[in-house]
């Protein structure tokens, strides 16, 4: 797959698609360097702005992180800890507000799980750190 400047799809999206496929196929493994702005720009014959936008898009999807001085790398996904989802609770997935993202120190492109317990209590959990599992011990709510 190469970048087609005549396509209707913006060049930065084409580059993002290309790198995303490499990540999803495992060709670029977690922790691997995606390549500098300059290298990607030369390799694909596109402008640096387009490269920057493509990387920003992938970052917002939680696929890569950019940290000085290491450049952009494929994001390593943390081990998930198991949290019980009690009977009678409900859960939604959404993107964090900017406050939540700061407070919980979430990378860009990481959703949150919002868990509402039967008593109305709401918990917001980092979407990439948690797996919600069935209650281990029987609760009074069950038959």
């Amino acid at each position, binding site marked *: 797959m190469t970048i087609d400047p005549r396509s209707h799809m913006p060049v930065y999206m084409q580059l993002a*698609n290309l790198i*995303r*496929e490499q990540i*999803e196929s495992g060709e670029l493994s977690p922790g691997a360097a995606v390549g500098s702005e300059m290298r990607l720009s030369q390799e694909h014959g596109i402008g640096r*702005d387009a490269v*920057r*936008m493509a990387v*920003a*898009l992938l970052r*917002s*999807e*939680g*696929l890569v992180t950019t940290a000085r001085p290491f450049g952009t790398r494929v994001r390593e996904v943390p081990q*998930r800890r*198991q949290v019980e*989802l*009690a*009977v*009678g*609770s*409900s*859960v*939604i*997935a*959404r*993107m964090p*507000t*900017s*406050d939540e993202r700061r407070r919980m120190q979430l990378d*860009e*492109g*990481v*959703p*949150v*799980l919002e868990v509402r317990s039967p008593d109305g209590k709401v918990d917001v959990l980092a*979407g*990439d750190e*948690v*797996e*919600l*599992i*069935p*209650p281990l011990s029987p609760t009074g*709510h*069950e*038959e």
Partner: protein
Amino acid sequence: MHAPCGDELVGSTLAINLRSHTPVYVQLAELLRQRIEAGDLEPGSALPSEARLTQEYGIGREAVRMGISLLRSEGLVRTVRGHGSYVREATQRRKVELVAGGSVIARMPTGRERQSLNLDEGVPVLEVRDVQGGVEVLPGDEVELTRPRSE
């Protein structure tokens, strides 16, 4: 010409700081995000045009474009080609009962899932795994999962 009333961008106490280490597009995204989260820009309303944001904040078009693209990836705005960008409206969520013994994670969709589920940018998915190991992927903005009382 004066800005139409109701548009308080100019009077905003916050402005872009060109000397900051934070990239200009990130600063713009932050300013607009605050206005959206404060309800100043309501769901469904149009964002100021690219040209307008460029003028009012004294920044380049590329920065405006990148700032809006960041908000799009956060699920805060959606861009309709040829029309502009709008504050995304929260969709009504339908309740889905979690299968007995099912576990759940939230993550961003793969490129393919986003296409097949027809998701806007910045919309996560819920991945439900049943006891047999079967996996179901549900659109994060349309579903509320409940753990039923009697399984």
